[in-house]
């Protein structure tokens, strides 16, 4: 098949020119000044090893005189993404997209932009970029393995963005599409990533509460597959997922066992996953009413999350610390932490984590109106499901709050807070 790609001429691409690459494909070019493209991004803040990687990759682009120079820009952008220069990487991918008419290249670059955005937890724009990639892939025949692999990678990025935006229907569609292509995927790492998406769709289906046997079997398979991989990151991630499932089935010891295995495998690297293990270990202790251990793990999570500017686990740690201070009846600190958590919260599905401590502080101060509003929020059907008895009590609060029945609101709130304490969801 002939594909239209690009040609470089004295480091300037000439619009409309066709050239044949080594692989026998044809390149069509637009006006394109390579030197302008290759302005050096600031790399002084990178480690020496990473600086070396960037320089080598950049030289590769500049040394190539022909189409190879253009083609080398994409691996260069990949390197930037790998060393954490996400915005710069995305700028290069954008430039490639606007300089080519090759649908596969455009789709692949959109997919890489989506992955980059999702890794920075910009799920809205990540989802938009992933949709762009998917719509371009759907114009292709997808008649060879590499195209299909690229397509499922785009589906993977889109599924992630939908999961964190709580767009369950779209996540389900992506998971179904992935299942269609799964038998064709031989690369174990990619296969694991895809199985991960299927897990996300199970999480959303059960709303992070009391998972069935099939969910555990699925992660067991993921654990077996990832064990074979050289890079232990995926295996550690699978342990995190298993820990998560046990946590939401209220099997706390088993849950912590998996988180500690993940921490051991990650060896202090991959902070994103490390923070998942730290944070949910704190949550497991919190659900068991263990104040000292919750404080220890929440503080550790907070310290690391601040170091890495992690926008999810900084507020989550605040919520856990709010609970700790509440248990110690330090109401001032408890409210301060709960409010800080509420103001910066990003883990949408887990709002209850800061809502109950904040509700207790508001109840004590007699600010029942805001407490009623929180109860309404916690009942949202896209958020984590909570036990039936607690849900019933929350409904009573909402009824009293909406009808402005102050006496009933006070009584119902008291009962809700008591029930939350018993259930472990306080």
């Amino acid at each position, binding site marked *: 098949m002939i594909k239209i790609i690009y040609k470089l001429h004295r480091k300037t691409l000439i619009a409309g020119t066709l050239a044949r690459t080594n692989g026998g494909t044809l390149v069509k070019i637009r006006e394109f000044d390579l030197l302008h493209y290759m302005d050096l991004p600031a790399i002084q803040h990178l480690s020496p090893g990473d600086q070396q990687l960037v320089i080598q990759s950049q030289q590769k682009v500049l040394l190539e005189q022909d189409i190879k120079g253009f083609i080398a820009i994409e691996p260069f952008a990949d390197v930037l993404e790998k060393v954490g220069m996400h915005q710069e990487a995305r700028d290069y991918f954008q430039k490639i997209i606007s300089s080519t008419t090759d649908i596969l290249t455009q789709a692949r670059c959109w997919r890489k932009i989506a992955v980059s955005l999702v890794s920075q937890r910009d799920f809205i724009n990540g989802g938009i970029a992933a949709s762009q990639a998917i719509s371009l892939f759907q114009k292709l025949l997808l008649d060879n393995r590499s195209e299909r692999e690229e397509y499922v990678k785009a589906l993977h990025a889109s599924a992630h963005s939908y999961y964190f*935006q709580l*767009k369950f229907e779209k996540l389900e569609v992506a998971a179904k599409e992935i299942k269609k292509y799964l038998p064709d995927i031989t690369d174990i790492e990619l296969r694991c990533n895809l199985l991960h998406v299927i897990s996300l769709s199970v999480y959303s289906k059960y709303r992070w509460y009391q998972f069935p046997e099939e969910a555990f079997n699925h992660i067991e398979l993921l654990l077996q597959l990832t064990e074979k991989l050289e890079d232990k990151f995926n295996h550690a991630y699978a342990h995190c997922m298993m820990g998560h499932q046990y946590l939401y089935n209220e099997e706390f010891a088993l849950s912590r066992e998996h988180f500690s295995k993940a921490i051991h495998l990650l060896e202090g690297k991959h902070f994103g996953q490390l923070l998942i293990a730290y944070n949910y270990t704190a949550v497991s202790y919190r659900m068991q009413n263990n104040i000292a251990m919750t404080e220890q793990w929440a503080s550790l999570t907070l310290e690391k999350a601040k170091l890495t500017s992690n926008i999810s686990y900084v507020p989550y740690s605040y919520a856990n610390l709010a609970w700790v201070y509440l248990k110690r009846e330090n109401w001032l600190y408890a409210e301060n932490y709960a409010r800080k958590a509420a103001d910066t919260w990003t883990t949408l599905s887990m709002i209850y984590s800061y809502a109950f401590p904040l509700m207790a502080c508001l109840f004590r101060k007699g600010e029942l109106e805001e407490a009623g*509003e929180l109860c*309404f*929020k916690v*009942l949202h059907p896209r958020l984590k499901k909570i036990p039936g008895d607690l849900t019933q009590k929350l*409904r009573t609060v909402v009824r009293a709050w909406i009808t402005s029945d102050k006496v009933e609101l006070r009584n119902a709130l008291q009962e809700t807070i008591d029930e939350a304490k018993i259930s472990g969801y306080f």
Partner: protein
Amino acid sequence: MEKTIYILHQRSSLADLLAWTLRLGTDLNVTCLGGPQELKQAETLPDLILVQPELYEKIHAFMNGSMPPILLIASHPDDEQVIDALYAGAADVVDLGKGPEELLEKTNQILNNAADNNALIRKLIHKNKTARQDEKDETEYGLTMKEKEVLKMMREGSHLKLIAQLTNSSYETVRTHVKHIYKKLGVMSASEAVIKAMKMEL
């Protein structure tokens, strides 16, 4: 295609909460309006307007006939105002006391043209009628026709023997009626029963 929703509620914090509820996990474009006059300034009509029943008539006046579906957001869904608005053309009513689920469910139903508002209106009217009947029954203390007739005569000053003659009943039967009346009205004497009869406008 992205659907647009406007929310109109005098409690702005509640309007914001409802907007948050609708936006979460959806592609809905939700805007909270400051008042019905802002509808006039809107360039295009939304796909749905959520409004508290008290503002329904004002919206009607501002919209000049071209109305998108209107979903009433009520704290007391059985209020007459709600029923009037449903009669006047509102698509459905959400009982906010039931939490966010009902709001999401009914919004989706209307946006997907699946609202069963006829059934709802029938239900509300029936409920309203039943409530009124109950109210009436309560003011008449569940007296039978015969007992009401006896009580009316007592109010007119007739003694029990005369009542027995006038109603073609035995004295003992009238006494039984009177006992039942006392019991139902929760009174101990004829004078108390007569006062209650006056209140009932017998």
